[in-house]
């Protein structure tokens, strides 16, 4: 018994050095030399300052931007506190939140029933994507706010729609941050990039 405990202690220490220190540091070293940009989170820089990560959603609420999904991470898109609402389908609070989101999207001029991803919070609270349906649903509102033609918005959405991998894996989607950055560069707002609320 005593002998086995002594082995246990030594085994824990030796394997911790190998698996708990050596292994992650090796993966870090290889990743940082081969895929530095990816290993650091695909950070996006504009005019010398960091403005986001390709993978991490940001809050967009103005009329002139495409909106992402409702977020339950912290107070919304808090990337140090990821998570979902964890409300059940029978939850009254969830039904009320969905109703509020439906109203606000329809008030923006959306037509017909709202795409379900626009009114549901993602699992991470940081979902970078919306469905093509959700982007198209907002095209008219954004076009109006940008003094552009809805067909131009539809073209921009099509251009930023990510297809399924190999035509098979995952779902078709639109990265909201990338779409809005393209929007800002191709249809700039008068007041220097600050969204105006009508």
């Amino acid at each position, binding site marked *: 018994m005593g002998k086995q405990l002594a082995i246990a202690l030594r085994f824990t220490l030796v394997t911790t050095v190998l698996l708990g220190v050596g292994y992650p540091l090796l993966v870090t070293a290889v990743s940082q030399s081969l895929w530095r940009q990816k290993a650091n989170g695909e950070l*996006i820089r504009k005019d010398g300052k960091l403005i986001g990560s390709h993978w991490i959603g940001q809050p967009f609420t103005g009329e002139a931007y495409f909106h992402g999904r409702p977020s339950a991470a912290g107070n919304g898109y808090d990337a140090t506190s990821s998570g979902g609402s964890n409300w*059940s389908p029978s939850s009254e609070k969830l*039904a009320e939140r969905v109703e509020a989101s439906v109203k606000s999207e329809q008030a923006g001029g959306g037509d017909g029933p709202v795409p379900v991803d626009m009114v549901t919070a993602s*699992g991470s609270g940081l979902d970078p994507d919306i469905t093509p349906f959700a982007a198209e649903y907002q095209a008219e509102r954004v076009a109006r706010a940008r003094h552009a033609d809805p067909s131009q918005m539809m073209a921009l959405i099509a251009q930023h729609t990510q297809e399924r991998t190999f035509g098979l894996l995952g779902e078709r*989607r639109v990265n909201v941050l990338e779409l809005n950055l393209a929007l800002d560069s191709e249809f700039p707002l008068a007041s220097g990039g600050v969204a105006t609320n009508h």
Partner: protein
Amino acid sequence: MTTNGWLQIALLFGVVLLLTRPVGLYLARVLERESTPLDRVMRPVEKLIYRLCGIDAETEMTWVEYGVALLGFSAVSMLILYLLERVQAWLPGNPEHLANVPGLLALNTAASFTTNTNWQAYTPETTMSYLTQMAGLAYHNFASAAVGMAVAAAVIRGIARREQKTLGNFWVDATRVTLWVLLPGALVLALGLVSQGVVQNLRPYETVHLVEQQSGQNATQRIAQGPVASQEAIKELGTNGGGFFNANSAHPFENPTPVTNFLEMLAILILPAGLTATLGKMTGSSRHGWAVFGAMAVLFLAAVTATYWAESGKNPLWHGVDQRASLSQSGGNMEGKEVRFGIANSALFAVATTDTSTGAVNAMHDSFMPLGGLVVMTNMLLGEVVFGGVGSGIYGMVIFVVLAVFIAGLMVGRTPEYLGKKIEAYDVKMAMLYTLIFPLIVLSFAAVSLLLPRLGLSSLNNAGPHGLSEILYAYTSATANNGSAFAGLNANTDWYNLTLAFSMLAGRFLMIVPVLALAGNLAGKRYTPPSQGTFPVTTPLFTVLLVSVILIVVALTFFPALSLGPVLEHLMLMAGHSF
């Protein structure tokens, strides 16, 4: 439900099916100490470990000695993890200057990772330093998986050996599985994940300036970083499931693309599936291995179908929402799900993670439709034998095989036999002990928690029948060593930290002891050649019997509790009730 969804499900299952045999045969070679292509790299490391630790690799152990070594290792490594959490603030590898972890939470977490559960009562981003995550939590992802595989090896040897007292050497099994399977597998997978976009760094959290600046709101966003890929890889491969981030595999930094999602699901399933072929190979009956695989496959595909159907459904409480599947959205119940995965991949991942004892999630199970939640909870209640945990799946399944053979023997009135071994009173007692400990813990603690308004009910996030589901899910997940959660439940309280820690330890070690006892007893038996009255364990009929035994045991035990939780919630929701 869409054709594309079914194709994605078929692709994953097809790849698992194709890899089961080669992976299983490789595992058998590693456990039998036969030569492999990795020997040139790993043999020197193996010998070094034996020398540094004072391990005599040539001595075999009885089941008691094997159990003592296993429990000793688990106890010592758990204590070290606890201490690491308690002093992390004073150690390097903590760029965010996170505080020491409070006592009961540290205890719960140490129990959780030592038992391969990876239940997380904390938010990792704001609780665990990089050093704790790497040298503590990710380390235990290797260690607990190696322990599970070692027990599986001992049990398979118990079935295969004749008139012998020993089951192998625990230290040798744990070392070889780590060096030949877990470490190289994790290394390759981790690098594959980084190449797709999973982060891997030791940098402090980044602050970025939001694109849309609005008065009265945050102008910046802080983005958590860390050595994610190295932990993500072993988290899935070792069926551990503890997320580097709170949102686990739903977090874009853990699981950014459909490709990483596919690789993670494959990593979850491949070792438990492969072990069925190892069982076949080492017992000399590969058809028995496939018969067991068949039972797992039937239960797996049934669960995937049911969950996919449930999550594609419409929520009758929501109005003005388009939930129809089309080319431009996957529709269905998207609360708690990511757009890039949609319904099919969320349902598939949920079943893979709960059928195995992984517990990683790429969608929030708490927000699943009631029947979807019912399926994932039932997957765990089956005792984590549908592929199951690395190692624990196959040894749990052997228990059900013993019961199935026993029941078949009763039906024809002969002494039951399993691969040439007579199954006698002692063996059935050990199997029943294993089967009874699990519901005893789950149902007792769930019942007590429901009776304690201040300790139990105050943690609930949802009212009505779903509240009962949240508590039942927690004790099921902990005792089955799964680790997924109906995460609305606030489990970081003294009551839940303590009782769930107890459930995890009991669900792991109280069940390993009867399994090893059974294996030790089987190893000592004489070989009885099959006769006319032997019920063959290699046929589709056996597969059907095995599936039936599993379902009957679970249905009789848990149906009342499930009918008060998810079943009632489904009926009331469909009638338009909310809570």
